[in-house]
């Protein structure tokens, strides 16, 4: 079953809290380099996991942005067409005028 980004986020937060508690319990004077290194590595791994989760979220919302872009482009195209259609009324008047002019040239003697 695929894990959702919300679950991953919760897991990262939980792991981060556990790690912080562990670090607080550790006596800095008595802790060995190995213990310190293990905590450091865990922190780094968690930070990378968090960035991976963020990147997945960003890619996911990118798809939604694409859908919205398409809808807005369609609406703008529709408006552009309407503006062109509205301008055609003046064109129609001009055409009728031109047709009358043309008819006058062929008026019966």
């Amino acid at each position, binding site marked *: 079953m695929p894990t959702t980004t919300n679950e991953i986020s919760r897991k990262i937060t939980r792991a981060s809290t556990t790690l912080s508690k562990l670090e607080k319990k550790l006596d800095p004077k008595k802790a060995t380099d190995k213990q310190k290194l293990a905590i450091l590595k865990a922190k780094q791994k968690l930070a*990378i996991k968090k*960035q991976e*989760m*963020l990147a997945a979220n960003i890619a996911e919302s*990118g798809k939604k942005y694409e859908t919205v872009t398409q809808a*807005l482009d369609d609406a703008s195209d529709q*408006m552009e067409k309407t503006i062109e259609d509205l301008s055609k009324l003046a064109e129609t008047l001009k055409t009728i005028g031109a047709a*009358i002019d043309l*008819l006058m040239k062929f008026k019966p003697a």
Partner: protein
Amino acid sequence: MKSAMSMTCRPISFLAAPLALAVLCLGLTGCGLTVRQQSAISKFSSTTRVLAEQVEDNLVQTRNDVVALRTGMLALNAGTVDLENASADLDAGLNVDELETRLKATGALRRFGMMLERLATDTQSGELQAASDQFVTSLRQVQGVNLSDAKAEAIAQVIGKIGGLWINAKRKKALKMVIVETRQPLQTLANLVANDFNPTNEQWLAVLTATHEEITDPLKSQLEFVVEGKHTKPEDDKSPKWKESEVTLRQHRYEALKLDAAARVKRAELISERMLRSVASFRGAHEDLFVIIQSPEVSLHRIDGYYAEIDSLIRLSRILAAKEKK
């Protein structure tokens, strides 16, 4: 022939035609946009274009901030920067493709605002009047039509007026349809932008916050570990063995990086707060526009508030940009 035609046609052309035009005029009166509706659409459109530009600038700025900070981290051999991992490299997932996807959306929003304003305000009246004048000039040449200058001018004006009313009625219908149909996409876009600029929402801006956190903790611990361990570096640390002087130099570099990160995050927080308010205003103003296109009596205060909010966002952006230059 000539006199017969003029006798039968004149009463029709001088009585029936103006009457038909007047009836058509009455039918179209009230079908167009009111001044209030036109003003609301115009204000919303121009403000939305500016909002789209601000969103674009700040998306790019956030990515630049992340790249600058992570480059500094790489110079300190930070274990959380991995050039082989697209989510942990210099832009940490804020890659060019993702940025481009978002910029296409803001570009579409800008174009939408521009077309909305054109559709609401393009009167075509000059074009229409010129065509009407030309039409009447042609009409006067028709055998049997005898129009005085005053009558010809009056007819040209009526034709222009009817054309204008017809255009306005069509314009309003088209605007109403566009505003209703784009209600959902625009609200979705507002949500997406709000998510991207909310640092707690695990989206765009959160990458900058996470980078700041990496500098504050894993990187600090990594540098302390090297100092405390008296140069006994972790086995998998690929950086060369550090000398005492190098440790000091790196500590200085780290402090500078930490300050830089804090300043960039502070700037992003200030912009984020204002951006979220602006997007909320956009939502409200758009809701009002949706209502006002159907009923012109609605108050414009949310559209006016939206304008004021974007104005304040621009001011803040300018102040912060001026600070950076100093």
